[in-house]
């Protein structure tokens, strides 16, 4: 990292999340590419259609793309959070003569460098893990010995994609650098500028259009499913993509409100009140740290709910007991595999969530010192931080579960609706319970460390600190 980006971004530790997220994403891509390479070689050796190779490649690419997207959202948030905490220093640099563009460029280069290292290391580690696992399976005669490529063709491009996504994310996340004016170095705190009215209107319009058309297509898919039309499932996928994109675009309009609604349920005592305000302090950041989790939870719930619905539907079909057991078995295994494939995106989002919460608390050291001086006990400070974390993650988990249940059921309905009476749906109890437990663990992880740190600092030190 150059001196300049070190000046803007501060300690390398603050970019640790970027490296970790890029590495997780790269590792996932590496493993997935080796798996799809293995399947492709095997299906060809059986003399199957060559189209299978293409399909596998597409499927792997889609899963990798989702993970890259979630990583990018996490990185945008990471960079934005780091910069928000350093606006004063950036303003000082501007005052001393640095121009905003080159400072932003420095942020992007610093972040991209970290992400490139993390992403490449992750991909190589993932490929290596995949190769070793495959070799072990071949040695145990579980897989035929074929001419597998040790390094899948797409491995290095995957590392490049991760790096490029990080660069783009750093660019988006560093927008605040441009808003730091030299005068801010001399005056007090800065307030994040709201969306310009025009941007706001465009966002609103796009959101309504995307969600509306997506909902229509989804409804159409459910109807097509009743008539057994093969187009139904494609329509469901398209509808989910449209409405999902709409939700992502419009999240900024809805999520902060949802979070503040949820946080109002936490109580009205001072810790809860301050926690509720902190949760929506910066609507952009609130939205991003929640949406990463929403995407993860939605994906897991969609697959779980979809397969649960299919299993419920299949149970009512006219088949022998042996057939029924076999169908259920296949569905159960496929469901597990799919959930394992998408759960990685949730893990990446969770890492981002923990990191944003921690950084946010560190940046509030002085404010917490003030609260302690005014009479917040250390217990109340802990409560405050935990409740903020609860407000954000409960909203994300609730939103994602609801969305996933709807998408999953609609997908199943569009596939097999014609074979069953009425609407096909299912409740994947164990998976929902698992998500809830993971949500609780996430809250604890995201609030325990920063709150311990916050109460370990005495009010005097906190009030004196420059951050």
């Amino acid at each position, binding site marked *: 990292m150059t001196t300049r980006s070190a000046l803007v971004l501060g300690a390398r530790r603050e970019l640790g999340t970027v490296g970790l997220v890029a590495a997780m994403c790269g590792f996932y891509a590496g493993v997935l590419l080796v798996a799809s390479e293995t399947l492709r070689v095997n299906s060809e050796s059986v003399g199957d259609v060559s189209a299978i190779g293409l399909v596998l490649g597409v499927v792997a690419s889609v899963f990798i793309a989702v993970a890259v997207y979630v990583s990018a959202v996490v990185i945008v948030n990471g960079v934005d959070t780091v910069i928000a905490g350093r606006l004063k220093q950036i303003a000082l640099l501007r005052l001393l003569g640095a121009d905003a563009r080159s400072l932003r460029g420095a942020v992007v280069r610093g972040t991209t460098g970290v992400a490139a290292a993390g992403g490449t290391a992750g991909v190589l580690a993932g490929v290596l893990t995949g190769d070793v696992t495959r070799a072990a399976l071949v040695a145990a005669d579980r897989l035929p010995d074929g001419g597998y490529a040790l390094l899948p063709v797409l491995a290095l491009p995957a590392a490049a994609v991760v790096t490029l996504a990080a660069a783009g994310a750093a660019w988006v996340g560093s927008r605040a650098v441009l808003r730091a004016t030299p005068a801010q170095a001399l005056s*007090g705190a800065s307030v994040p500028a709201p969306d310009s009215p025009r941007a706001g209107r465009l966002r609103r319009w796009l959101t309504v259009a995307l969600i509306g058309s997506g909902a229509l297509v989804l409804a159409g898919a459910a109807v097509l499913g009743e008539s057994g039309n093969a187009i139904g499932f494609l329509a469901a996928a398209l509808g989910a993509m449209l409405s999902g994109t709409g939700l992502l675009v419009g999240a900024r309009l809805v999520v902060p409100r949802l979070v503040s609604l949820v946080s109002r349920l936490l109580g009205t005592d001072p810790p809860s*009140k301050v926690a509720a305000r902190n949760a929506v302090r910066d609507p952009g950041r609130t939205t991003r740290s929640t949406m990463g989790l929403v995407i993860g939870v939605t994906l897991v719930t969609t697959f779980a709910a979809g397969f649960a619905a299919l299993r419920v539907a299949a149970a009512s079909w006219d088949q022998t007991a042996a057939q029924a057991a076999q169908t259920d078995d296949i569905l159960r295994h496929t469901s597990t595999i799919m959930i394992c494939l998408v759960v990685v995106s949730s893990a990446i989002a969770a890492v981002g969530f923990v990191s944003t919460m921690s950084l946010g608390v560190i940046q509030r050291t002085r*404010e917490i010192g*003030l609260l302690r001086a005014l009479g917040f006990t250390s217990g109340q400070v802990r409560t405050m931080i935990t409740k903020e974390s609860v407000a954000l993650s409960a909203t994300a988990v609730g939103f994602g579960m609801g969305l996933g249940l709807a998408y999953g059921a609609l997908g199943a309905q569009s596939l097999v609706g014609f074979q069953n009476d009425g609407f096909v749906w299912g409740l994947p109890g164990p998976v929902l319970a698992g998500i809830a437990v993971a949500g609780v663990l996430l809250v604890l992880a995201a609030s325990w460390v920063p709150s311990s740190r916050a109460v370990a600092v005495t009010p005097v030190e906190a009030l004196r600190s420059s951050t």
Partner: protein
Amino acid sequence: MDSLLSFSSVSKVYGDGGPGAVRALDDVTVAVPRGGFTAVMGPSGSGKSTFMNVAAGLDDVTAGEVHVAGHPLHRLDDRARTLLRREQVGFVFQSFNLVPTLDVRENVLLPFELAGRRLRTDEHAWVEHLLEVLGLGDRVAHRPGELSGGQQQRVAIARALAPRPAVVLADEPTGNLDTRSSREVLGLLRTAAREYGQTIVMVSHDPVAASYADRVLVLADGRLVGDHDAMTPQQIAELLIGFEVGAA
């Protein structure tokens, strides 16, 4: 003795007592009686801030006793000190006084909320009176970020006075303000002391600020070296220069 804040032989040493140790407070004994506006003066590094932090129970003493409103601060644990602070001490800092996510009224009412009690009718009237007198009547729904420095400091004063604490501690309350806002803030503090009988202890290095007080304590190198009645800015400045020259 009817003193709200008393130090007896208080010392505060930073560091492990070796050659690098700093005696921020050195055997300070002083009593601040009920009512009145006391200024604590001294050049930077004289122990003013430490005096304030110790008086507020934000920092431990190395030796000696500190009593606030009859409570032995030096013997209380962190939680008890927090509660004492909540009930008996009001604060005005140099900067960063307000909780940025709460609006003006919420900031002023925070001490009551922390104590977990509703406002009595007379307290409610008192808060409204304060907001009005401090010229904040039409700004109660604003966030601190939307106010000027002087306005923010007035909100902090309202918050400090609202629960009628035993003592209000003000740490360089005009350090970040322009001349006009400074005079306003100092005038308000003096009024609070004279008209409402509020005990106020203000730490400052500014002779003009200290001239608003009716008692001036002077610290130098952690020792209490002066205890005077109200003085003019010129007198205070000369006094300080005398110590600086004497030390050199």
